[in-house]
């Protein structure tokens, strides 16, 4: 949270970037990407999140500790999602069939 003052121009650029990405993700959803649908939507959402955290939340000019906290949140969310999905995605392996 360094008290670095961010010029309005930068904030406006970030705003336009975010609105553009929103428009993009909405339009892309129309195109049938099949299996690629979710990854693209999540990538765009991640890009928007980066814009918001780095610029609007001043993470770019804050002490490294705060960035570490943000990274920690993402990592622990990944642990929760990964661990649970590892169970559901692999339930079909080693099916106990019988006659």
């Amino acid at each position: 949270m360094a008290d670095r003052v961010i010029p309005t121009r930068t904030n406006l650029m970030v705003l336009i970037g975010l609105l553009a990405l929103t428009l993009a993700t909405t339009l892309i959803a129309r195109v049938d990407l099949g299996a690629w649908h979710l990854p693209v939507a999540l990538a765009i959402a991640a890009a928007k999140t980066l814009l918001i955290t780095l610029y609007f939340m001043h993470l770019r000019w804050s002490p490294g500790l705060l960035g570490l906290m943000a990274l920690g949140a993402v990592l622990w969310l990944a642990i929760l999602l990964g661990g649970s999905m590892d169970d559901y995605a692999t339930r079909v392996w080693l099916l106990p069939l019988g006659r």
Partner: protein
Amino acid sequence: MNGQGLGFPLFPPRASALADRVDALFFFLLALTGIVTLIVATLVIVFAVRYRQRPGRVIAPSQTAGSTLLELAWTIVPGLLFVVPFVWGARLYVDAAVPPPNALTITAIGKQWMWKFQHQGGQREIDSLHVPLGRPVRLLLTSEDVIHSLYIPAFRMKQDVLPGRYTTVWFQADRAGDFHLFCSEFCGTAHSRMGGQVTVMQPEAYERWLALGASESLASRGAKLFQQLGCNTCHRGDSLQRAPGLVGLYGRPVQLTDGRIVTADEDYLRESIVEPASKIVLGWQPIMPSFKGRVTDDELLQLVAYIRSLEPPAPEPFAPEGQPLFPAQRRQGG
């Protein structure tokens, strides 16, 4: 070791091949952990007594800060030692997960505070399970209400039983006699009463017992139900017009509309009856109505037994690996 002299057991009975292998792993772990605990305990006591505070020894003379070598040693050595029980335990677990092909399937339904078993020949029993000696037995488990857990200590076997889903477990009893059967997942008021007896019988005695209680087999009851509910109006033996054929379906890979390939196990058959719209076979339309609420768990098991019994008449050439047996060559539309 069974503590006969004490008047009460200190070790559980062993009645299955798996039990011996699990006990071997248990004793290995007991030895491994026992030795390390003993070493730590003696060191603590020896150091505490030998280096106790006494006149002239108010502060420790040597204030050693530590030794990285020692730290690495007691990090890596336990790491390597732990690989043994992990691999050993994992091997036994995987062996216990996949039943041998010739296993005898018995269905078990956990219901608040009783176990209902049903043999292929239609014999039904509550809170007691008769099984033959020396033959692998595969239990197909489900629950009508909450989560229970079928636990037979003598076989070192335990498997949770979930509503809305099938779980399976198998064992091969190798000692005749009666053994405890418990429910080991808390399921309500009479959780501690929900158990019974597993009776392992000589094969001939088992056959005689089966004959005694024989009634209409699961598969034939399933066939009757198949007609009653009108399943045969769409799933017909002769035409694949409105619905995929069921002959020889059990255990085969099936391709779905969204491209996934799933194996037609009991869970797939059950879900296709209760929630048909969630998995549609490639080339067919989601026109099947849901039978949820119209079919009880017992009847579902009978239908699944019936579908499983539909063996293809002539020995079918097995489809090459990964190839779905039901390619979408059928005409679109119903």
